[in-house]
């Protein structure tokens, strides 16, 4: 299976591990991530006002590229995924917005919102299947208690994202189980880490992040996994001693490609 892949700015810089392990694991699972030509940064957050079309053009271009290949569009970063999915939804539901971006891009065939947008986790669940992943696990993560941190952007706004139940999600936990580890369910797994406000109010982000890591630790977590580079930064910078790891690294460990990658 070949899918269009939107890595995003941070996966080329501070979060190269998130990207590298995503690619390695996809290969093992029989999925080719075909990186989009000349992709541009998604902008990190989706602006909700309905008269801000220009900042969404990079997402529309990525969506249109995937359509031209008749492939689903996959991203790993929670923020990229959120922006791509919300932009796609805006094209589908807001005709004025769709007309404006299509006029701007001047495509012969206007983009119609038809691309299927998947987060890498959704790709694992819906296109690969957790059972198939379980069969490929060579190094089951037995005895590890792992807390999945969803944060905001994977789940909300739930009407648009439609990844999982926004208040009681299980996609991450199902993956952790498939890898042989024990998921830790804790109250703050879908609360905000402080996000970009860490730029100007680091102490505010610190309060938010510390509450999350403390909550995970109080439920016995050995490790926290996330899909978002900014969540990882905030939780590591401000949290406790519980390590914060990208979920793709965990997957690579279970699939036995983590050492290969390091020795390569």
């Amino acid at each position, binding site marked *: 299976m070949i899918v269009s892949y939107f890595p*995003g*700015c*941070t996966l080329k*810089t*501070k*979060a190269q591990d998130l990207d590298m392990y995503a690619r390695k694991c996809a290969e093992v699972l029989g999925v080719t991530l075909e990186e989009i030509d000349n992709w541009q*940064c998604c*902008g*990190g*957050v*989706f*602006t*909700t*006002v*309905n*008269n*801000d079309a220009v*900042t969404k053009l990079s997402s529309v271009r990525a969506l249109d590229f995937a359509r031209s290949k008749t492939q689903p569009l996959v991203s790993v*970063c929670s*923020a990229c995924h959120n922006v791509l999915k919300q932009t796609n939804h805006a094209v589908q539901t807001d005709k004025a917005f769709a007309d404006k971006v299509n006029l701007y891009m001047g495509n012969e065939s206007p983009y119609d919102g038809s691309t299927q947008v998947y987060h890498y986790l959704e790709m694992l669940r819906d296109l690969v299947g957790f059972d198939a992943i379980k069969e490929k696990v060579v190094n089951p993560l037995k005895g590890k208690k792992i807390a999945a941190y969803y*944060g*905001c*952007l994977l*789940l*909300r*706004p*739930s009407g648009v994202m439609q990844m999982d139940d*926004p208040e009681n999600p299980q996609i991450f936990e199902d993956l952790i189980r498939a890898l042989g580890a024990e998921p830790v369910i804790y109250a703050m797994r879908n*609360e*905000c880490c*402080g*996000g*970009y*406000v*860490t*730029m*100007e*109010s680091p102490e*505010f982000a610190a309060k*938010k992040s510390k509450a999350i890591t403390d909550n995970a630790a109080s439920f016995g977590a050995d490790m926290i996994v996330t899909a*978002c*580079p*900014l969540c*990882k*930064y905030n939780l*590591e*910078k401000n949290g406790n001693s519980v390590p914060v790891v990208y979920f793709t690294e965990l997957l690579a460990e279970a699939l036995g490609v983590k050492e290969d990658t390091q020795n390569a």
Partner: protein
Amino acid sequence: MHNDNTRLTQEIIRASGVNPSKCMKCGKCSATCPAYDEMEYHPHQFVYMVESGDLEPLMNSKSLYKCLSCFACIDRCPRGVEPAKLVEAVRFAVIRQQGADHMTPDDVPAKLNEDIPQQAIVSAFRKYRK
């Protein structure tokens, strides 16, 4: 506080797509807001202050820059009011004015450290700058 702001109020309501009169004032948006303690005006106050055209205090408030865009109030509102969309529309009404950027490129170097991801910078710019 009525007529002066009528046009701007209408523009904010239109750009946000929010209908503030659907609000039943239960306060769940503010109860779930992770930035509540940092805000002078809270999400439920945005809703009734925009509805009544009381914009000036909101436009001058630091609360505009404390919203984390976490979509918690949008998801958890039992009436589908989506208060964060109003916060964003008011913030845009401010930063779209000439010279009203809340953050400029010159501000960035002092806010960086070795580990901060690019995502934080681009996200802050998208929220704070036009």
